[in-house]
């Protein structure tokens, strides 16, 4: 047994194995029962009829949704690049020895982390046009998402820099390089590699956030789904299919993040000290949004 809870119990003996088998059967039955209830409910209202699902075997519908997926990818890529660059700058700013820079970065991060993105989007949509600021639709989505995600990226990068042994910076400085250079050539490259898994996880959350394009009427996957469902009246089917598309793409990215996480952990020498081990595990705590 190698899953994360394995240390909670001994290797099962014959009696425990019987109990586990019984538990498996009972929980499988309960889960199947819930699933069957849902299917019956769906079937009774005609949601399982074949003609409500076969449209999704046709290419035109998929090509329509794929245009949306392209919009999702475009928005996500823009936000990832902008928020990534901005976030690294903010992280350096928050770690800077220059007091105004540090305060400004800290203030920005703390404010941006506690504002709902939707509030910023409404401000973009209905507030700023009154002052003559009316961006194209894509940017009405990208700017609020960048504002919010930059703060999160900054915190991830900062955690990575702080987790690096102080000796790295000290060694660089004692070689006579300037502080900024040491940051750029020694500290940041290592810190970024260390937090790559968290950054990939953040990418997943960012892709999920682009679904707010639904609100600003930007052509991304969820918006297309809504238009499509208004046209074909297959609401449940359309939204389930689109949810599945999100699940497949983001699931693949999440899997990548998990793989990277185990690889990063293996590269770092296995910690023996329990306190160190605990600190290491703390880094794994997912950044949420």
């Amino acid at each position, binding site marked *: 047994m190698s899953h994360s809870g394995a240390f909670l119990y001994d290797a099962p003996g014959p009696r*425990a194995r019987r109990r586990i088998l019984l538990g498996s059967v009972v*929980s499988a039955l309960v*889960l199947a029962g819930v699933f069957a209830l849902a299917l019956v409910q769906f079937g*009774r209202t005609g949601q399982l009829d074949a003609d409500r699902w076969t449209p999704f075997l046709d290419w035109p519908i998929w090509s329509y949704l794929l245009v949306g997926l392209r919009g999702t990818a475009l928005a996500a890529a823009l936000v990832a690049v902008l928020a990534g660059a901005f976030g690294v700058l903010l992280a350096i700013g928050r770690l800077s020895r220059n007091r105004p820079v540090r305060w400004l970065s800290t203030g920005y991060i703390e404010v941006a982390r506690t504002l709902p993105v939707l509030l910023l989007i*409404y401000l973009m949509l209905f507030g700023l046009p009154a002052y003559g600021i009316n961006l194209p639709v894509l940017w009405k989505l990208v700017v609020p998402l960048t504002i919010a995600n930059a703060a999160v990226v900054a915190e991830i990068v900062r955690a990575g820099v702080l987790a690096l042994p102080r000796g790295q910076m000290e060694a660089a400085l004692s070689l006579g390089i300037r502080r900024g250079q040491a940051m750029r050539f020694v500290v940041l490259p290592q810190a970024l590699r260390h937090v790559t898994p968290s950054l990939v996880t953040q990418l997943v959350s960012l892709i999920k956030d682009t679904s707010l394009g639904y609100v600003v009427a930007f052509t991304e996957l969820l918006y297309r789904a809504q238009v499509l469902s208004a046209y074909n009246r297959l609401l449940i089917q359309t939204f389930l299919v689109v949810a599945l598309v999100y699940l497949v793409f983001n699931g693949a990215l999440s899997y990548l993040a998990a793989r990277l996480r185990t690889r990063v952990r293996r590269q770092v020498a296995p910690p023996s000290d329990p306190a160190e081990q605990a600190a290491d595990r703390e880094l794994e705590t997912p*950044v949420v949004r």
Partner: protein
Amino acid sequence: MTAVIENLDPLLRALGTTVLILVVSAVGSLVLGVLVTVARVSPIPVLRGAAWAYVQVFVNIPLLALLLLAVFALPDAGLLMPLTTTVIVVLTVYEAAYVAEAVRSGINTVAAGQVEAARALGLRLSQTLRHVVVPQAVRAVVQPLGNVMIALLMNTALAATVGVVELTSAVNKVNLVAAQPIPIFTAAGLTYMALALAIGLAAGRIEKKVAIHR
């Protein structure tokens, strides 16, 4: 500022809705999240798989897609609940996945010796989990759980997209009439910041109170 003061009554009512959604789904997602974590570390493979699938689904599908599905699509299958209730249910099951992830990383911080000691005392697995592992795991992740709750607060704003009149929605409505975006949105932003600050401070105090000094 006059627009905010003139509309204080509907805005406060909307704030009440936001807080109601926040509190109910916070409690619900904490309970559900711990249960999912327990299933995820249980010796029963079926439960483990189900809990894993649960977390994957809600961590990878956008909340907005789930909200639209629950509010606009599921009534077609005869599943209709009051609007605010639907939003609370969706937020609860969504955020529970993040709670489960946080608590699971807390379980990793519980030393194996603790479990061995519990077993040596004759506690069964359910007792070990209830009295030894989960209390320590949750205490180790108070701060991350606070962050999940702040994310939950941010996510309550999405209720506006399906027609619930909570703070973001009310603010937008007031602005559409009064057309003073800067003061109105600033007031809303400050309110959200104050709520998030309150959650953060509460998490800090709780952590200090329950922290285990190792």
